[in-house]
């Protein structure tokens, strides 16, 4: 609702965060040497930069998925993690890892996407019978997420001990497997542009499906677009970094506080804030007890829990 655009500030914050992330780590590299010296190019180009790109794309993807799914189920407490969409992707992908099968990245993402889509679709099918309201929908999502938790625990228990730790790490969110650099950022950019086309529909849908329908929105088509995009975004994010909570929940709320229900601005804003938040959280995760690296999910939770409680209190 404010007239001043937050986007230039956020772009600046993103650049600063990138510089910070380049310089911090188990070995500190001063800003000046990042920019003007080749001495550290090995560390920067092959370790830190890929990880930064990964954090930015995963943060953006998760925030957008959160923004979309909150619109879809008309509940501000929804996000891909809470509704079990991440869990669905993670379960099947973890099963693949546990079986020792090596799949090409696109196929790995695709099976995650199908699992996410089926899980979210099933959830929505439950609600379309009118027997379930949005509160119960959320509750069903939470319960389904628990089921995935159980599947994941089972896979972990049955896997050989050597791989368990890295799997566990991945489950708590881990950005260190930055092997395929460009897919996620391409998905983020292309997906954002695709979703942006529907920004007016999303504005009206946020006011309720009946309202959107009577105002001329093709509700079914728009919901299908949201459903597919959310599943793709979640699956790609999970493939890259495991299940990271709270980013998808909290970031859209922050964005809404800044600009209100205007998706033309919420979409770029959520993606940017998400990128910054996850990048900073990951930088912390790498440096706080360096050289030991903590899962980034630990820090998104540390950040997310107080912010979310604050937001919730402010709303009421």
């Amino acid at each position: 609702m404010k007239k001043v655009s937050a986007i230039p500030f956020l772009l600046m914050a993103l650049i600063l965060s990138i510089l910070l992330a380049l310089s911090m780590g188990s070995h500190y590299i001063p800003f000046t040497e990042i920019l003007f010296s080749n001495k550290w190019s090995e560390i920067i180009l092959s370790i830190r930069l890929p990880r930064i790109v990964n954090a930015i794309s995963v943060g953006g993807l998760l925030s957008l998925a959160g923004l979309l799914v909150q619109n879809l189920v008309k509940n501000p407490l929804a996000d891909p993690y809470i509704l079990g969409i991440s869990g669905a992707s993670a379960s099947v992908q973890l099963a693949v890892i546990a079986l020792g099968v090596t799949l090409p990245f696109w196929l790995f993402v695709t099976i995650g996407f199908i699992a996410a889509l089926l899980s979210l679709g099933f959830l929505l099918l439950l609600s379309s019978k009118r027997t379930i309201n949005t509160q119960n929908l959320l509750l069903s999502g939470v319960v389904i997420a628990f089921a995935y938790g159980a599947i994941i625990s089972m896979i972990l228990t049955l896997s050989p001990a050597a791989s368990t730790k890295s799997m566990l790490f991945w489950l708590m969110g881990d950005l260190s497997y930055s092997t395929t650099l460009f897919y996620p950022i391409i998905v983020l950019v292309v997906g954002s542009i695709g979703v942006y086309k529907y920004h007016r529909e999303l504005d009206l849908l946020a006011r309720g499906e009946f309202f959107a329908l009577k105002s001329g929105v093709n509700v079914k088509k728009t919901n299908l677009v949201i459903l597919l995009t959310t599943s793709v975004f979640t699956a790609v994010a999970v493939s890259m970094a495991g299940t990271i909570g709270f980013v998808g929940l909290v970031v859209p709320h922050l964005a809404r506080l800044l600009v209100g229900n205007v998706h033309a601005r919420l979409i770029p804003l959520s993606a940017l804030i998400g990128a910054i938040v996850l990048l900073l959280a990951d930088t912390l995760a790498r440096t706080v007890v360096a050289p030991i690296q903590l899962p980034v999910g630990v820090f998104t939770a540390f950040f997310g829990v107080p912010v979310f409680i604050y937001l919730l209190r402010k709303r009421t």
Partner: protein
Amino acid sequence: MMEIKDLSLSVDEQILLFDLSLTIKKGEFWAILGKNGAGKTTLLHTLAGLHNYSKGSIKIGGFELNSLNFLTRAQQISLLPQIQESSLNCSVQQAVSYGRYAWHKSDTANLEIINQAIQEMELSDLTQKSIQALSGGELRKVEIATILAQDSAVMLLDEPLNHLDLAFRYKLMQKLKGLSQNKAIIMVTHDIQYVQQYCSHIIMFCGESRVLTGKINDVLTEKNLTKMLGIELPATLKESLLKNI
């Protein structure tokens, strides 16, 4: 403008309406009267294309209602629902702007229409206020302004006077009367006085899926009102209600 032929409606296997046929023309201001649960809202939603009908046809501008695409339908028909939940944080101006969704006009043209609707509903001082912070009556005015901004040929209003103060009810009815020169307006209400004063035609639910339709003076009679309400009209009410008939 709107042709209804042999329309039958039912909800959960209960028949609300049987073989309704009527034509609604531009310049007419229709009222729908009936007891609670008679099917007034269902009929209104059906005319808006938001409720399936078991039998019959509804044509608007010569085209079957359920063959229109979403945008064309919203350009032709607008609906003010009875109750609207609003937990959304958006400004009054934004909320009213949603009424312009179906029209592809330039932002400046849209803004002019939006601001005019806001002004007509006397909301100019609240333009940038969040709709979460509004009173019930103010929110109702925002909803009506949204419908005005939608500027459709047919306006369907479900109890538009709810939550409004007496002075504004009067103003709104004046406004609607003026609008109905160039549109067709169909309104569900319980305020018989206003119907008498402003409406030209009436659809009256008389129980057991029987519906009376026609010009106001032909249908709004003591006999029919007694039938509709199912009680003998008290003498005082009779006098004040029907003195114009």
